[in-house]
């Protein structure tokens, strides 16, 4: 069957099988940031955005992309690089395997939640597993990144005034 969707701002027309998952389709489009960690919806590594909402691409039928906008890490390079700097500074980038899905969900959270508490951050990210870090360095990086975004917003608002 044929599907038409928008991938990172680009129109895509693709031929898929009825039982293809979005994950395989996105890799076929050379979005290699999208990886399979568990294939059982438990690890969060395959996270992408469907119309701006984070979902697990290992379980979303590719057919459901029809008419929708999909965003992967390839489409969020600027934000990802900004956040990655905080991760590097806090040592929360170890083997790096969990990063693509984790970064996608952190960026979704930064849009979704205003001034989240530590508990709200943990709750939002509980579906992203990391075998290396123990999550404390992640938390430091996230808090600093959110503070950076807040300052940036305030600066922009100041510039406008």
């Amino acid at each position, binding site marked *: 069957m044929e599907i038409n969707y928008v991938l990172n701002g680009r129109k895509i027309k693709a031929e898929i099988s009825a039982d293809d998952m979005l994950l395989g389709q996105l890799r076929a489009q050379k979005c290699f940031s999208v990886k399979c960690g568990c294939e059982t919806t438990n690890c969060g590594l395959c996270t992408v955005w469907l119309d701006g909402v984070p979902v697990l691409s290992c379980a*979303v039928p590719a057919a459901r992309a029809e008419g929708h906008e999909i965003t992967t890490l390839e489409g969020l390079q600027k934000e990802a690089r900004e956040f990655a700097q905080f991760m590097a500074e806090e040592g929360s980038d170890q083997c790096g395997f969990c990063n693509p899905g984790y970064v996608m969900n952190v960026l979704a959270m930064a849009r979704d939640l205003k001034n989240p508490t530590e508990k709200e951050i943990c709750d939002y990210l509980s579906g992203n597993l990391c075998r290396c870090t123990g999550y404390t360095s992640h938390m430091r990086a996230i808090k600093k990144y959110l503070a950076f975004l807040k300052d940036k917003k305030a600066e922009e608002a100041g510039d406008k005034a």
Partner: protein
Amino acid sequence: MYSIKEYVIATTLEEAYNLNQKKTNRIIAGNMWLRLGNANIVNAIDLSKLGLNKIEENDEEFQLGCMVSLRQMELDEKLNDYTKNALRDCVKDIVGTQFRNSATVGGSIWGRFGFSDVLTCMLAMDTEVELYKAGRISLADFVNMKPDNDILVKVIIKKNDGKANYQALRNAATDFPVIACCAVKKSDGWSFSIGAKPTKAVRYTASLEDIQNNMDGTLDDILEKITFGTNTRASKEYRKAMAKVLLKRAIKNIETDGQEV
């Protein structure tokens, strides 16, 4: 892993229902559970374009379309104000945000899973399901029906003067619950549901007087009637002991408006 020959996006419920009469065809909702099985599906019937992803409210009830995601349930303020956050509490530990953005209330209730937080929570409330052919029936009846070829269209939570509280115990955050309980207090009595026993949830009621004057004895009587089981997550003895703790905690939370645990 399952296989699918044709992916059909249903344009009407009638079309979906007719297709679903064949054993080799299956409704596809969030797809989170379905894809883990090994069915050879001829037509996967997608309900996502039927406008069934809305939570609607009127004077008597909340109506949740079957394609409402668990995340929608978690974030809906009116629904959570009304249920005193019981619905939010019952889904908040299910895997993760991304998972809950896809998994649906229809798939959760239709599956009648033993481990289901959603089923356990809704069973203690005045909940009905609307089936395409069979019409409206109480969730308490639906839970004991054998899965057939009907379609679950809506889940309905009736409004009343009740207060609800949901409690679950997990060995690890985001794992399946080891035991789950929901309590609802109305002016005419209490209702309780106990799920993840590990088999599917059951519902019991008690009078206001019995809980007020003899809470331990009343809960012990209820728990005596329930068959708890042992699996790799927990023993039946542990489940039974914890069910009592969770029920008492839920009752206390309701009586104190969540001020004290």
